[in-house]
C-alpha cells in the first residue's frame, strides 16, 4: 500500500511539474513600454475596481434627490452673505455643511436672484458675475456656467453622500465629476452665452469655502434666465 501511495504521489508531482513547465514556457514577457504606449495619455489607475458607474449613480440621484434637496435646503444668499463676509467660520457653523470638521472646508447650499453684471467666457471654466437683488451695481458672486466646472461643491453639500460609502477617493472623485457633468448638460448647456449680460437670473446651487479667499463661486443646480 505504502509503495503504491508513494508512486502515486510521485506521479502527481510529475504532472504538477509538467503543468508548471508548460505554463512557464507558454508565457510571453511583454515589456512595460508597450503597455504604456497603449495607454498613452491615460495610465492605469492601480486600485480602481472599475465596477463603479459614476454617471449612472449621479443620474439616479440627480432628479430624485439632488434637485429636490436643493429646492428644500437652499438658504437665501442675502441671509448668508452678511455673516459670511464678517466671519466665514461663524457662517459655516450657522449655515454650512461638511461631513467632518478638520481638513474640510465649509459648503453652503444657497439660492438667489440678481442681474448679470459681467460675463467671462474667455476661460473654458466660464462664469458670470451676479449682482443680487436689491442691486447696487457690484458683483456679489460668480456663477459657474461651464463647460469646465471647478471644485466638488455639489457632492460635498449633499448630507446623504458619505466618503465612507465609496471604495476609494477616485470613485468619490468620479461621482463629483459626474454630478458636474450633469450640471453642464441639464443646467447650463442651453444658455444663450453671448446674450447674458444685463439679464436677470434666479438660481439654486452650492459653493465651497475657498483657500484664503472670500469669493463666492456657485455651481448651479437650477438656473433660470429671464
Amino acid at each position, binding site marked *: 500500500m505504502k509503495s503504491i501511495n508513494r508512486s502515486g504521489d510521485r506521479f502527481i508531482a510529475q504532472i504538477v511539474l509538467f503543468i508548471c513547465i508548460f505554463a512557464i514556457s507558454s508565457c510571453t514577457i511583454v515589456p512595460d513600454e508597450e503597455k504604456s504606449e497603449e495607454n498613452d*495619455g491615460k495610465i492605469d489607475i492601480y486600485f480602481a475596481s472599475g465596477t463603479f458607474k459614476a454617471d449612472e449613480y449621479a443620474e439616479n440621484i440627480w432628479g430624485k434627490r439632488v434637485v429636490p434637496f436643493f429646492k428644500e435646503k437652499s438658504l437665501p444668499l442675502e441671509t448668508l452673505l452678511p455673516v459670511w463676509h464678517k466671519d466665514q467660520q461663524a457662517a459655516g457653523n450657522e449655515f454650512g455643511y461638511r*461631513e*467632518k470638521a478638520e*481638513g474640510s*472646508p465649509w459648503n453652503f447650499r444657497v439660492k438667489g436672484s440678481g442681474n448679470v453684471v459681467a460675463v467671462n467666457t474667455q*476661460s473654458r471654466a466660464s462664469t458670470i458675475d451676479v449682482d443680487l437683488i436689491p442691486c447696487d451695481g457690484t458683483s456679489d458672486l460668480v456663477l459657474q456656467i461651464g463647460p*469646465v466646472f471647478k471644485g466638488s461643491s455639489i457632492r460635498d453639500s449633499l448630507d446623504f453622500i458619505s*466618503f465612507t460609502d465609496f471604495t476609494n477617493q477616485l470613485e468619490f472623485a468620479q461621482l463629483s465629476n459626474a454630478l458636474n457633468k450633469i450640471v453642464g448638460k441639464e443646467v447650463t448647456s442651453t444658455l444663450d452665452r453671448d446674450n447674458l449680460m444685463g439679464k436677470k437670473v434666479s438660481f439654486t446651487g452650492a459653493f465651497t469655502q475657498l483657500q484664503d479667499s472670500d469669493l463666492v463661486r456657485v455651481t448651479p443646480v437650477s438656473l433660470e434666465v429671464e
Partner: protein
Amino acid sequence: MKKMLAAGVTFCCFLTASMVYAGGLIVAITPSPDNPFFKSEAVGAEAKAKELGYEALLLVHDDDANKQSELFDTAIARGAKAIILDNAGADASIAPIERAKKAGIPTFLIDREINKTDVAIAQIVSNNYQGAKLGGEEFVKLMGEKGNFVELVGKESDTNAGIRSQGYHDVIDQYPDLKMVARQSANWSQTEAYEKMESIIQANPDIQGVICGNDTMAMGAMAALKAAGKGDVIVVGFDGSNDVRDSILAGDIKATVLQPAYRIAEMAVEQADKYLKTGSTGLPEKQLMDCVLINSENASKLETFALK
C-alpha cells in the same frame, strides 16, 4: 533558572515601561523616512503619542507588503494598544489589519486608504485627487490655458502616482489648447527626473510647462530646464516640501500642493487615544484631508509640511 531570570527581566522592563507610559504602546508603521514626507508622519505620530502618555515605536515597511505583514506581527506580539499605518498597498494591507483587529488591536490609517471599510477604525486619507485638481487648475492658469507641456509621473506601482495623474488630467484635458508632448515616469526620483527631462528637452525644445507627480521630480525637472537655459518654463510639483518652498521663493518652481503629513499623523494618534478611552472616535471611518495650494503668495509660511 535562566528562564526565571529572563521572565523577571521582562517583567521589570514591562513594569518600567508601564510606569513611564501609562497608556501603553502605540506602533507607527510608515514608508521609508528617507522621504521627508514620511519622516514628518513618523515624527508627528511619535510626538503626539508621547504627549498623550503612550510609548511610541516607529517601524518602516519600505513599501513592501510582506515586510509590513511581519511588522504587524511584531506589533501584535508586543501587545500594542493601537497601530498607526501609512500602508503598503490598498489590497495587500487588508489581511494584516484584520489580523490585528482579531488580536484586539485597532488600526488607524493615515495618508493612503485601503479598499475595504469596517476593518480599520479610521482612514484619515490625504485627498490626493483634490490636491491634484488644485495643482492642475493652478498649472492651467499659469499656462494661460494653452501651450505644450510635459508630465512627469511617479512610481507606477504607487496608488498615489495614478490618483495624482488622474486629477491633473481631469482638469488639463478639458483645455484643448494644452498639448501634452511627453509623459514619462521618473519614479519619484530627483536624479531620474533630471535625466528624463534632459532628453525630453532635446526631443521637444518647444515646451512651456512641466507638471510633476511630486516635489522631488519637480526639483529635478527645474534643474534640467535651468541647465538648458529654459528657466522660464512653468514647473508645478506636489507635496509641499521645504526644497520646493525655497525654489518658489527664488522664483523658479511656480507652485506645489501641500499635504498636511504631520497633522494627519497627529490626528490619527488623537483618534486612537479617544477610541481607546471611549470606544469610539466620534467621526466617520473615512476622513478626507484636503490639500492646500502653495505658490509665491503663501510659500513663506510653509515649514516641514505645515503652514505656520
